């Protein structure tokens, strides 16, 4: 739905559509509403009227099934589109400026490219690639351009020369011990990583920003209680909590995301609180109050936008932590082994490391690159979005 809209951007007269008064919705909110309502309806329909195993899109003859997590993922994609991508289009001048600043950081541009690949791969990949199938006959195929002793794979798909089995383009990154194609599994893992990244970010941002600004603006004992609560959240042994929940409810990816993001917003909230406090001392906050703005208008219109650059940076740097945590849990064997995440793939290849290292190395390198990319990206965003630096130049 989002892509369908984007094709018609040039024809839309934004000034004409934008809010006609202060109670009207902006284009962004309107778009968000228009895309979320069908999604919510579909979600309710899927939940209430379809069986567990019935594909969501059966009514138009598609085999695609959406899980609860997928609905949340699509929702966060809508959020990102209407409130992150579209504003960039609406303010071409600032976008050009940010891009100019961002471009100066070469590693970050490469990182953005890599994350773009992961993002597109994660969304489009599962639609065009069939889910990896178990096929013991083609287990342990080596990646293309490499070879293993022909005793390692059950049957060699590619050429066998001098007693060595060579990899083929059929399985560019080889196969696992179960005969699943490693490349396909990595692409499916991209979806998982993007889901983890987007959904946790949304949850952490929502709770953290609300909690942080509320705490900063309440002050007094409310602030005190809220910040001590954050201390509790921060010192909570999330891992043990997750083990407990896993024991009671079983471990799905959704459970991982919910538990880890519900215990991860503490740092963000504390950071945003201190940021809000320093911003609320600014003269323009006083100017805004003096021209009659309410506390909500001040927070929504001035405090959060001014903190946004720091918030975006902070959240970008938070995502790698989640990806790593998921991989670690999967590696330890804690977590849902049916989820095709990179961590699970690494975990399956663990025992075959001596003779089939590509099963661990391929997803390991992808995971490493992705985490590195997020870190570079956060670093460059900090430089590009920092309004204080800009004001000092002006």
């Amino acid at each position, binding site marked *: 739905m989002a892509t369908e809209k984007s094709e018609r951007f040039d024809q839309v007269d934004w*000034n004409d559509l*934008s*809010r*006609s*008064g*202060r*109670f009207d919705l902006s284009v962004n909110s309107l778009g968000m509403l228009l895309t979320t309502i069908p999604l919510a309806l579909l979600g309710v329909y899927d939940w209430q009227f379809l069986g567990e195993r019935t594909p969501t899109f059966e009514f138009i003859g598609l085999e695609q099934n959406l899980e609860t997590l997928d609905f949340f993922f699509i929702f966060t994609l809508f959020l990102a589109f209407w409130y992150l991508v579209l504003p960039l289009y609406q303010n071409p*001048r600032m976008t050009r400026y940010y891009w100019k600043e961002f471009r100066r950081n070469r590693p970050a541009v490469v990182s953005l490219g890599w994350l773009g690949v992961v993002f597109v791969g994660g969304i489009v990949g599962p639609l065009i690639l069939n889910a990896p199938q178990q096929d013991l006959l083609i287990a342990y195929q080596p990646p293309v351009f490499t070879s293993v002793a022909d005793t390692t794979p059950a049957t060699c798909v590619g050429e066998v020369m001098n007693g060595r089995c060579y990899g083929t383009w059929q399985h560019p990154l080889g196969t696992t011990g179960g005969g699943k194609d490693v490349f396909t599994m990595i692409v499916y893992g991209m979806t998982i990583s993007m889901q983890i990244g987007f959904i946790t970010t949304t949850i952490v941002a929502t709770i953290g920003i609300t909690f942080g600004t509320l705490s900063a603006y309440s002050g007094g004992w409310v602030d005190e209680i809220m910040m001590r609560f954050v201390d509790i959240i921060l010192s909570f042994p999330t891992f043990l909590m997750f083990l407990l929940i896993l024991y009671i409810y079983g471990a799905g990816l959704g459970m991982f995301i919910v538990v880890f993001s519900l215990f991860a917003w503490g740092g963000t909230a504390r950071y945003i609180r201190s940021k809000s406090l320093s911003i609320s001392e*600014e*003269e*323009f906050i*006083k*100017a*805004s*109050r*003096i*021209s*009659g*703005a*309410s506390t909500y*208008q001040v927070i929504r*219109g*001035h405090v959060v*936008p*001014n903190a*946004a650059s720091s918030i975006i940076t902070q959240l970008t740097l938070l995502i790698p932590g989640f990806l790593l945590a998921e991989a670690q849990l999967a590696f330890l064997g804690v977590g849902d082994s049916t989820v095709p995440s990179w961590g699970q793939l690494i975990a399956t290849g663990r025992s075959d490391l001596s003779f089939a290292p590509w099963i661990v190395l391929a997803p390991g390198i992808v995971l490493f690159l992705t985490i590195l990319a997020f870190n570079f990206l956060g670093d460059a965003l900090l430089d590009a979005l920092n*309004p204080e630096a*800009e*004001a000092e*130049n*002006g």
Partner: protein
Amino acid sequence: MSADQPLLEVENLTTTFSTDNGTLTAVDGIDFSVDTGETVCIVGESGSGKTVATESITRIINTPPGEIEGTVRYKGRDLLSLPESELRQIRGNDIAHIFQNPQEAMNHCYTVGWQIVEALQIHQDVSDDEARARAVDLMDRVGIANASSRFDDYPHEFSGGQKQRVMIAMALVGDPDLLIADEPTTALDVTVQAQILKLLDDLQEEFEMGILFVTHDLGVVAEIADRIVVMYAGKVMERGGVLDIFDHPGHPYTQQLLECLPEFGGTGGGISGTLPDPYDPPEGCRFAPRCEYAEEACRTGEQPEEVEVAPGQRVSCVHYGPGGNPSIVRNDEFGPIDGDGTAPTDGESEVGPADD
């Protein structure tokens, strides 16, 4: 609003702040009033409580730690007892502010146009297009060349003077009756300062505003004020018409302030000593510790009652009070009590000996 009622009437305004070191009294029981179309200047050194006094009017001071007492009547309504929601309707709509430092008073995340439109849409339900048109009009009115194309520029792309013009435009969106200008020209250079003062003067006539102007710059006061209120350490030292005070400054503090100005024949040497501790103000006249005419009577009791020394000019000084001898501080021709304050004088060069 009856005809004889002033636009703004401040009575016994006291603003204190509770801090860990005790209670700080920034403004201590001051009175003043502003009429429509009139410019009243609050003058005093830095730290005299001028800004706190003006920010107390619309209760912009954070409470707590601040505490505001007294009455502030705007068109007969007591602003200090109004609930926050009603006060918000007055802020920006009826009473507008402009600040000392326009650079800091603008949000650098947004274009200046956005900020003017925001100020407008807080109070009025107007469409974006209409708001934009009005904002461009206002920017044009305050003298920003090429207003419609500068609408989408960011604050850092404006010069200091232009930013102050934008701030004035933002202040004018609600067609205010009272404009509180807190040192609006301090951060600007002298030529721009003169332009801004001229602009404020023109706008005052056009919008029929009362202006409450805070400054420590007596040169600015001479240009725009109708009446002056001289503040020192949270108290009013002297008040009166601008000409009366410049010709016959009554209070030793006012005299010394004027002496600081080279263009008024002063030495430009400054006033020796510093402001008293706001946590523990001295007894008697606040200025007594720095006053060369101070006597025993100046250092006991409360700040002296204000005494009318000429029509409309009132001084809070022991020497003008009962039993005092004004000639001690006034070494120009004696006789402020009788007549119309036109006693012959040779001007300020004779007022008091220089303090250095």
